[in-house]
C-alpha cells in the first residue's frame, strides 16, 4: 500500500456528516412507515441532547471504562508481522471487551439513552448474536426487558450466543421468514417496533437504518478509533499508514475509521465474498451491489434487476447482510476508503493462522479483515504500520469452523 494513496479530498468536513435529515451524500435518510416517523424525530432529538449532555457522556464513559473494560489494548502482533515479512501489524482488541465484541459500545450507549427516554422495553436484531448478547447484557444491567430477533439459521450456527442471551434474561424470537438470517431479523424487529413504538426502543446494531441510527451508532463506536489513534501515536510516535476492518453493515469499520478521516491515513474495508463474487453466494454490497432502499435508508444493496433484495451469504453470520451503512457508500464513492472482499475459505484460513501464530481466536467476521491484512501487509515495507480492528472474539465460531474444516478437508 503506497503512502501516496493515503489521503483523498473530502467533499465536506467528515465530522459534519450527515446533514440534518441524516443524508451522507446521496445515502442515508429516513424511509420508514409513517407510524415510526414521530418516534425517529423523538429519538433524534433525545440523541442530540445526550450528545451535548456532559452528565450523559460521563455516565457512558464510566460504563465503558469500568463495565465494558475500555480502553481496549492496541496489541502489536510481532510474530505475525515477522511471518508475513511486511508491515508492523497492530490489533485493536475489541475482542477483549465485556461480551467479546465491539457491539457493547453501541448497546450501552443506546440502552442508556432508552432509559433516559423513559422506554421500558428494548428490542434488537442480531446476526452473529454479538449485538444481541451486548444488548441483552446492557438491558440486564439497566433493568429493562429485552427481546432479540434472530433468524433460525443464525440461531443454529450461533447456538452459544442464543443460550447467553437467554441466561441474561432476554427472550430470543426466532425469525423464520426469507433466508432466516440477519435481513429477516431486521424486518421482524421493525414490525415489532411499529406495533410497540410508544413503549419500546429499537436498538439497531449497526450503522444502518433510518436517521439517526447511522449517525448514532457511528458515534457510539467512534471510541474505537479515538482510542486507537491516541494509542498508536503514543506507541509508534506517528499515525498508521493503513487501517483495516471487516464490513458487514459496517459498524466496527466506521468506529475505527471515523477518528482518522481527516488524517493522511489509507483505509480498507473488507466485505464478505462468501463463495466468491462470481457466484450469488456473497455479502459484498459495496463490491457487487448498487444503491437502493432497505430497512429505512438509501444504501448500497444486493438486489436483482426488479429491485428485490438478494439474500446475502457469508460464513460469518455478522457479515451476512445485503446492505452496507450509508456513510460507507459515501466513503466508497469519493474514494476515501477502498473496499475489498475475501471468501469464506480465506477467512477460515486467517482464523486458524491468528490462533496458531498469536494465540488469539478471532471472530469469523474479524477474520475477513485479517485475511486481507495478511495479503496487504506482506507487500508493505517493514517499517509501515497497519492497524486492524479485531472486532470480536471467536469462541462463538469454533463449532462452525470445525464443521467447515471437516466438510472441506
Amino acid at each position: 500500500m503506497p503512502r501516496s494513496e493515503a489521503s483523498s479530498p473530502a467533499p465536506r468536513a467528515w465530522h459534519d456528516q450527515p446533514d440534518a435529515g441524516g443524508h451522507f451524500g446521496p445515502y442515508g435518510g429516513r424511509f420508514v412507515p409513517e407510524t415510526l416517523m414521530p418516534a425517529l424525530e423523538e429519538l433524534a432529538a433525545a440523541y442530540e441532547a445526550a450528545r451535548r449532555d456532559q452528565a450523559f457522556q460521563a455516565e457512558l464513559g464510566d460504563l465503558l471504562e469500568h463495565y465494558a473494560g475500555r480502553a481496549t489494548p492496541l496489541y502489536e502482533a510481532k510474530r505475525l508481522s515477522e511471518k508475513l515479512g511486511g508491515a508492523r501489524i497492530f490489533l485493536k482488541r475489541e475482542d477483549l471487551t465485556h461480551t467479546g465484541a465491539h457491539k457493547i459500545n453501541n448497546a450501552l450507549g443506546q440502552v442508556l439513552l432508552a432509559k433516559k427516554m423513559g422506554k421500558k422495553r428494548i428490542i434488537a436484531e442480531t446476526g452473529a448474536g454479538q449485538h444481541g448478547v451486548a444488548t441483552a447484557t446492557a438491558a440486564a444491567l439497566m433493568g429493562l426487558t429485552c427481546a432479540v430477533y434472530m433468524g433460525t439459521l443464525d440461531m443454529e450456527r450461533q447456538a452459544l450466543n442464543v443460550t447467553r442471551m437467554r441466561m441474561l434474561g432476554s427472550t430470543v424470537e426466532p425469525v423464520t421468514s426469507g433466508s432466516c438470517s440477519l435481513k429477516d431479523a431486521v424486518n421482524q424487529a421493525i414490525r415489532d417496533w411499529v406495533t410497540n413504538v410508544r413503549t419500546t426502543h429499537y436498538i439497531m446494531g449497526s450503522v444502518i437504518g433510518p436517521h439517526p441510527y447511522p449517525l448514532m451508532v457511528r458515534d457510539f463506536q467512534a471510541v474505537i478509533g479515538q482510542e486507537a489513534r491516541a494509542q498508536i501515536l503514543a506507541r509508534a510516535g506517528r499515525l498508521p499508514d493503513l487501517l483495516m476492518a471487516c464490513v458487514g453493515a459496517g459498524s466496527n469499520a466506521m468506529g475505527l475509521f471515523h477518528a482518522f478521516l481527516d488524517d493522511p491515513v489509507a483505509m480498507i474495508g473488507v466485505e464478505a465474498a462468501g463463495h466468491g463474487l462470481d457466484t450469488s453466494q456473497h455479502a459484498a454490497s459495496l463490491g457487487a451491489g448498487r444503491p437502493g432502499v432497505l430497512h429505512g435508508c438509501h444504501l448500497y444493496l444486493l438486489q436483482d434487476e426488479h429491485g428485490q433484495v438478494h439474500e446475502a451469504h457469508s460464513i460469518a453470520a455478522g457479515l451476512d447482510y445485503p446492505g452496507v451503512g450509508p456513510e460507507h457508500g459515501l466513503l466508497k464513492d469519493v474514494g476515501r476508503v477502498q473496499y475489498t472482499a475475501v471468501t469464506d475459505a480465506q477467512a477460515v484460513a486467517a482464523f486458524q493462522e491468528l490462533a496458531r501464530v498469536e494465540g488469539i481466536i478471532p471472530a469469523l467476521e474479524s477474520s475477513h479483515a485479517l485475511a486481507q491484512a495478511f495479503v496487504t501487509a506482506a507487500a508493505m515495507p517493514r517499517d509501515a504500520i497497519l492497524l486492524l480492528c479485531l472486532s470480536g472474539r471467536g469462541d462463538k465460531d469454533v463449532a462452525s469452523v470445525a464443521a467447515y474444516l471437516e466438510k472441506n478437508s
Partner: protein
Amino acid sequence: MSQAIAQAFAAARQAGRAAFIPFLSGGLPDMATTARLLTELDQAGADVIEVGIPFSDPMADGPVIQEASKRALDAGATPVGVLEMLAGLRGRIKAPLVVMTYYNPVLNLGLEAFAQRAVQAGVSGAIVPDLPPEEAAPWLKAARAAGLDTIFMAAPTTPPERLPRLLECCSGFLYYVSMTGVTGAGLNLAPEVLAGIRTARAAAGLPLAVGFGVAQPSQAAALAGVADGVIVGSALVKLVLEAASPELAVQAVGGLARELRAALG
C-alpha cells in the same frame, strides 16, 4: 392528478355510504388469477381497488401479506409484470386502481418510468408506505408529471401538527392507519383511535380511508360512520392463500367482498 379516485369517493358519498376499497396482492397465486380476482372485486361493487406489487422485504406488512408477497415472487411476479396485467384489464374494470408497493422497486424501475408505466396501465394512484414526506420530493415530481395520485398514510402516532406536511404530498385520498402495527393485526377501535380519525378527516380536505386490521363486515360498518372509505386487505388475501383452486379463490373473495360492500350501506 387523476380525477378517477375523487369521483369514486364522490359517487359513494352521493349514495350515502363509505367507499369500499379492497386490496389484493398482485401475482398471487398467478397473474391470470389476480386479473380474475380484480374483475370479481369490481363486480362486487368495489369503489377503488388496491393492488400490491410484491417486495422481498415488506416491513410494514403482517404474516398474511408477507406470505402472499413471497408466494407471488416465487411464482415470478415482477413490478412490470403486475403493471402489464393491469394494463390488460383496461376498459374491463370500472373502479379506479391504486398500486401499493415499497420504495425500492419504484426506485429500481426509475421514478418517472414507474409513474408513466402505471398511468399507461390505467392506474390512478400509488401508495409507497416506506416513503415519508421528508424523502418524497423526487417521487412527487415524477408522479404529478405523469398524472398519478400520491396517497400518503397518517397513523395514530402522527401528531396533529404533522398532518399538513402529509397532506401537502397527498392526493386522491388520505390513508389512515387504524393502529400502531402491521397489516392484518387485530383491530381495536378505541375512542382515541376514532378521535384521531376525526381530527385527520377534518384537516384533510380530501377523502379519508381507514385501513389495517379491518377484516369483518361489522368492523367495516363501524368505520363507515367516521371515514369516507374502508380498506380491507389481509382478510381477502388470506382467502386467496387458503383457496384450493383459482375458482374457489374467486368465489371466496367475491363472497366476502359482497358482504363488506353491503355492510357499508
